[in-house]
């Protein structure tokens, strides 16, 4: 199939940027979306033009490196999939596809479709861990964790840190990313001792980095390739209240 691509090009962070149009020819439905971009880039290279810069690494949906907005939707139309897992059988001959970078104040564009997501690391630094130094761990089976608890933790821990939630949010909020970590550690016994400081410090850091507030719109969860649930945000808000006013007699 042949496609028309409208692609965001931007030389560097302070460049104004613009949409350019390219043709993608002889695209097979078995290609991934990024392989289609590879082919366009090969052509651009041979014409002596700079190829379109975009991030990608594992190309199997787990590293979280790729992230582009395809026809207005982060990662494109295939729900629960990253851009690298999106295949061209989702498109048809003659389609025009618009491709843009994540757009959020906290994620400045580095070049073309590549953005700086180091703010996510900064949020984790604020408390997204259990303070256990190497060697200090007790025997693994000494603390039982119910199967359902482990599954809930893993549902939240599945977040790949790609930033689609921020890109789609009208407030450019990173609540889903942050709450996924808060819930992952918050449901496990290992995460209890730091539970309340964790949420307070992470939220404070989040706000200071230029992310917006959450207004429970839910688009984040709808585009999340790891299908992180909005329940994580509710969980985090409960922890936040507990950290401010205390948990009282309510069970943890």
């Amino acid at each position, binding site marked *: 199939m042949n496609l028309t691509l409208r692609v965001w090009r931007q030389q560097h962070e302070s460049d104004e940027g613009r949409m350019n149009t390219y043709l993608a020819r002889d695209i097979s439905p078995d290609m991934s979306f*990024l392989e289609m971009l590879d082919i366009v880039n090969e052509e651009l290279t041979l014409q002596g033009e700079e190829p379109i810069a975009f991030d990608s*690494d594992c190309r199997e949906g787990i*590293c979280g490196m790729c992230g582009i907005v395809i026809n207005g939707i982060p990662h494109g139309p295939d729900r629960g*999939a990253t851009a690298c897992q999106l295949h061209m059988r989702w498109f048809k001959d003659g389609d025009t596809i618009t491709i843009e970078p994540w757009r959020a104040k906290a994620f400045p564009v580095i070049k073309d479709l590549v953005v700086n997501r180091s703010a996510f690391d900064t949020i984790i630094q604020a408390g997204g861990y259990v303070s256990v*130094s*190497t060697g200090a761990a007790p025997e693994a*089976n000494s603390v039982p964790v119910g199967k359902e608890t482990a599954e809930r933790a893993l549902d939240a821990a599945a977040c790949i840190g790609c930033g689609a939630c921020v890109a789609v949010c009208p407030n450019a909020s990173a609540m889903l990313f942050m709450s996924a970590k808060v819930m992952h550690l918050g449901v496990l016994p290992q995460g209890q001792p730091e539970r309340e400081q964790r949420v307070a410090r992470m939220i404070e850091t989040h706000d200071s980095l230029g992310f917006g507030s959450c207004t429970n719109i839910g688009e984040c969860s709808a585009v999340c390739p790891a299908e992180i649930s909005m329940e994580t945000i509710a969980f985090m808000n409960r922890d936040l209240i507990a950290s401010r006013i205390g948990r009282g007699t309510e069970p943890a």
Partner: protein
Amino acid sequence: MARLTKSAATQEVTLDSKAPSGPIEERWDHRRFELKLVNPTNKRKYRIIMVGSGLAGGSAAASLSELGYNVDVFCYQDSPRRAHSIAAQGGINAAKNYRNDGDSIFRLFYDTVKGGDFRSRESNVYRLAQVSVDIIDQCVAQGVPFAREYGGLLDTRSFGGAQVSRTFYARGQTGQQLLLGAYQALERQIAAGTVKMHTRHEMLDLVVVDGRARGIVTRDMVTGEIETHMADAVVLGSGGYGNVFYLSTNAMGCNATAIWRAHKKGALFGNPCFTQIHPTCIPVTGDHQSKLTLMSESLRNDGRVWVPKKMGDNRPPHQIPEEERDYFLERKYPSFGNLVPRDVASRNAKEVCDQGRGVGPGGRGVYLDFADAINRLGKSVIRERYGNLFDMYSRITGENPYEVPMRIYPAVHYTMGGLWVDYQLMSTIPGLFVIGEANFSDHGANRLGASALMQGLADGYFILPYTIGDFLATVGANPLSPAEVPEAQEAEAGVRAQIDRLLSLKGKRTVDDIHRDLGHVMWDYCGMARSDAGLRKALDRIPELRQEFWQGVTVPGVNESLNQSLEKAGRVADFLELAELMCIDALHRTESCGGHFREESQTPDGEALRDDVHFSYVAAWEYTGNLADPRLHKEPLSFEYVHPTQRSYK
């Protein structure tokens, strides 16, 4: 530090592993006691460079920083959480014996030495098995959400090459969860101020001063700035070199540049031809393919591998009756069945495809069928065990594996070879340590499933933090600045010259185009089956490809900007050199062992036939300045505990 000594008897250069002697179960304990310690208050006077932030690099950097050292960590991705360890699916081995099924440290050691086809170092493997149990404790304490049983205790599953259930897992995302554990520990140390993280930085050379590794030259991939960083020791945890083959299950950015540049600065390269071809990957669909996707080996627990008995049988799978199917692994290996080690499973898949019985486009595939398991256990159990893998498969192929058998084919997945290190994980350059997949150490000629995560974390959490202290205590803290070291300026000048040269290339081919050609050569002649004639062809072709690269490619853009074409060109230039060393190594090793299958050396029924008399050694190659003529050093391997036998999984 003279570790290369001429042996009078053979006039061959032999290498000393510095492995301890004595009862194997006491060796690591004894060595740990012998190792010099750095006083806690002195640790902050030392600076350590860590290249790579995966399971090995991330866990080591966090642990070293917790001890009090200053650590500079470099990774090419935008965050340490992206390292390709994240894509490991199946699990991590540990000799916990929670199943009461007869597992033990000795059995894990035994299985790993045997699985590696007797080409690994016994002392290292035993230590690996010993610390495996501590790894699980550490990860659980970090909050890694391993799979649990209803009673709340840890669940395990069995994996290829083992008859006990010792693999701990978190759905099909074990690598992700373990990496996030290490990443979170690392981020905690970054917040504490003892780790400085340098993301989107690529190491382009090693700085060696007075024979000691003292720093690295990096390129800031956003600004193009070339920087030299100095330290008291340098650690490479930069992963494997499977991308030599162009198509592999590695991430797009995985590269050999850090280890290759260190090799050219004097570090010996161990067993470069030992590569692992993983049996369960999604087959190639066309030339556009940029990478291959692995389906976890754990699928072989419930999936049955088969092809039609008849050649050229093009019927859809459900129309092929049971008696016309060949479950070739179950037929040939009744005791291990579908769970034979990876090298055996891969080679058998190739064999049935070569016989014209392969399925799918081009006949390069075999079925992995879940129909029996779904009938026996129900769809929901299968979904719980493998749901995300099934989803991934259907996304890529457009087929539903609950209804139609998966099609799989082997693909390059892991490299057992890497920089040679001694028992203390130090390379032949003093002060240069190498951990995880980047070193050659523990897997011999074939890695067992769920052992890569174990080795990466063993090196990072529990081995390097001790052994590097011994080195640092010996040499003392001695800060250097690049300005006072001519070797640093020379290395920097060399890096700049290479970048200028690459950017001046304005030929008619793209870097990917040459890389693809290199991949075909390596897959055809240095892949699942290797022969004298084929390897010689490859050795003719690779220098030509190098010439075509340096004369014929075009590299657009400038250095002073994010330039992915330039990054790729530098990596492929190194692959084009490393490929030659792999073929030289494969050609010299005329035996078959593990994943290294020489067609000339097989048993009557087609299994890998080792030649212990001539090849029971690690081949460690020295760069001589001439790529076609590296110098061979040998580390003899002795087996005191696991007696070498012909591996049998029948």
